[in-house]
């Protein structure tokens, strides 16, 4: 049964089409695997087995009755959804106590589109609270463990989705990426994760963190799987005025082309001090592989890269402090009665939010407060313009940019929890792209000596996900990293938890 769970989305699609496998069988295999292993990995916050089997049965029915029709490639494919993306009728906690009992009465547009394509929803995956974090340790419920080494983090904030896909607890998943929250966990878990251009996917039903940066992204074990998911969720939505009415290419069709003559830019600023040497070596080797496939390697510069971190940690908290003002205990979520209205607000929010969320609300409120707005928020927004211009200039000289996704492989649980800046540095390679609103993908490009996956980030121009996917697919086809899967080691995890007090 466990081989079924290791299928990629295109493999499962083909077996389902041939009638060699039913969606119910596949879904049941995944549910069994989740029951066997999710106690160790803790990828899921909510599991919906009955609903999933019901959806799988109806997918099988559609396939049986509509034999002649052009059926969606995602029909009957079991997926996981990050717990910041609403699925009607399933709890949506955002990894926070303040939404512990919140059950959304509607589904996000991206989820609606997946459901319309016939995909099966297995459950909701763990996340750093309100997607604020880089390790999934900021979840108010529990930390998720990396399937490659259970004593390590899966990255974050979409760590539950990345770990679920890596461990074969879902064939694909949705996450959200504000500063790297899809790409960095994809890198640390050795799977493919794509963040599309800002505006490509509707944010309706995605709980807002930083509205000028948030985008829904996809996880899969291969580039083709990610392309299929992205194709299904992309497009204009009248309910999100920041979604863009641009044509959506058939992503799974654009992968095949070769990359001869394509210009691949290598930004010199991404060779930073403190980067793990194996990461640097693996990415250098990947650039060599792309060159051997006929790509032209171009040296480029993104001179304001080092400012992306401070810009992000002013802009995102500023937007978050405004977005999270809605949690007031009146219409939904936790409500703690205080002495008066104001005390009710303060008690509800003070008890309901965890430390990282409070830290960012405080930071954002300060950056926007009278007297500091110009020095912090406005200054950061101006430097954001410089960062965007860097990308415009670099992408005039090349078609895609290639960098590491994360400066290190997965770190130990607890290692960076107490030092916010160390944790924020995890996103040093992903933030600039988010600030520029451009698309990026992370895919496996090697392993370090401890057997932990290394991620390669490929970034592209606005609404040019097709080229990003094509380069990623060419690299993936020339290498075998994506074929490696973690051996789930329940024993070693028990030992290591016993050893830690």
């Amino acid at each position, binding site marked *: 049964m466990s081989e079924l769970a290791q299928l990629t989305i295109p493999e499962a699609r083909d077996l389902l089409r041939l009638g060699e496998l039913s969606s119910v069988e596949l879904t049941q295999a995944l549910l069994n695997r989740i029951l066997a292993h999710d106690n160790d990995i803790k990828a899921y916050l909510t599991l919906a087995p009955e609903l999933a089997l019901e959806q799988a049965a109806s997918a099988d029915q559609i396939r049986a009755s509509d034999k002649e029709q052009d059926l969606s490639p995602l029909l009957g494919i079991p997926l996981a959804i990050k717990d910041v993306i609403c699925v009607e009728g399933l709890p949506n906690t955002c990894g926070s106590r303040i939404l512990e009992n919140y059950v959304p009465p509607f589904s996000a547009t991206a989820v609606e589109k997946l459901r319309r394509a016939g995909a099966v929803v297995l459950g909701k995956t763990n996340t750093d609270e309100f997607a604020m974090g880089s390790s999934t340790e900021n979840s108010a419920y529990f930390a998720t463990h990396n399937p490659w080494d259970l004593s390590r983090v899966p990255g974050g904030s979409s760590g539950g989705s990345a770990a679920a896909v890596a461990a074969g607890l879902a064939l694909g998943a949705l996450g959200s990426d504000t500063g790297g929250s899809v790409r960095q966990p994809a890198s640390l878990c050795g799977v493919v994760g794509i963040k599309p251009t800002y505006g490509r996917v509707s944010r309706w039903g995605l709980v807002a963190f930083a509205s000028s940066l948030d985008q829904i992204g996809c996880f899969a074990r291969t580039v083709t799987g990610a392309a299929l998911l992205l194709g299904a969720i992309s497009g204009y939505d009248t309910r999100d005025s920041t979604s863009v009415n641009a044509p959506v290419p058939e992503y799974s069709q654009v992968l095949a082309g070769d990359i001869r003559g394509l210009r691949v830019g290598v930004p010199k600023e991404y060779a930073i001090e403190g980067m793990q040497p194996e990461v640097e070596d693996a990415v250098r080797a990947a650039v060599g592989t792309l060159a051997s496939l006929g790509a032209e390697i171009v040296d480029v510069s993104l001179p304001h890269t080092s400012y992306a971190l401070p810009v992000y*940690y002013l802009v995102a908290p500023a937007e978050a402090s405004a977005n999270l003002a809605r949690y007031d205990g009146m219409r939904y979520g936790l409500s703690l009665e205080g002495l008066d209205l104001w005390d009710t607000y303060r008690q509800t929010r003070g008890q309901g939010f965890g430390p990282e969320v409070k830290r960012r609300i405080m930071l954002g409120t300060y950056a926007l407060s009278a007297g500091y707005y110009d020095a912090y928020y406005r200054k950061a927004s101006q430097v954001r313009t410089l960062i965007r211009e860097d990308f415009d200039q670099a992408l005039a000289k090349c078609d895609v940019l290639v960098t590491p996704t994360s400066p290190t492989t997965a770190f130990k649980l607890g290692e960076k929890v107490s030092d916010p800046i160390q944790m924020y540095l995890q996103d040093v390679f992903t933030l600039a792209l988010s600030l520029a609103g451009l698309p990026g993908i992370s895919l496996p490009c090697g392993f370090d000596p401890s057997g932990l996956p290394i991620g390669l980030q490929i970034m592209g121009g606005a609404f040019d996900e097709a080229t990003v996917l094509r380069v990623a697919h060419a690299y993936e086809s020339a290498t075998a990293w994506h074929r490696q899967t973690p051996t789930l080691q329940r024993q070693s995890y028990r030992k290591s938890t016993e050893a830690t007090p």
Partner: protein
Amino acid sequence: MNTSLYQKAFVFIILNPKGVLPPCPQGQGRGRCFSAGPYYPLPTSRGDPTFVSQKNLGIGIGITERAVRPRPPLCNLLPVLSHPAFWCIMPPASMRFETMKLSLAQVEHVAQLAQLSLSDQEKELFREQLSSILEYAQRLQELDTSAIAPTATVLPLENVMRDDQIQPSLPQTDALANAPHTQDGYFRVPVVLEGDE
């Protein structure tokens, strides 16, 4: 740390004749400003002026009165040290950030703006952590952005119009399903405005 700050400053003043010190701007009290160069005042949340130096020297961020250390007795003994210009000296890099820490009152003020109740421990923790994050963010002051337009969104946003037509919406019961308190089909909330009936 404090002693070393003043020792270093002392050495610095000896090596730099008074005549070459930059003049301190009008209205700037001693002990209020630790960085050289052009200044512009920024009102703090408490209304008293603090100073942030511009561009190149930007790392010497302004401080509020509460954050100022007591001046050492040396100041009373040596007139040169109590000259306003002395306090305008750009401190050596090693001590630039020592005065940046937020005050407890500032942390409490921000928590109030954000409607968050914080424990004493949290206040102290955030005071430390926010100070160091803001200190890190000071790197942005290295850049001259005087001619740069800010980016609030990467999209060229336009107004989105639609016909004023009734469309399906959430049923009232669904919209109220997550509310902690409801009454007669409404959200029930605590008293907002108090006064005579």
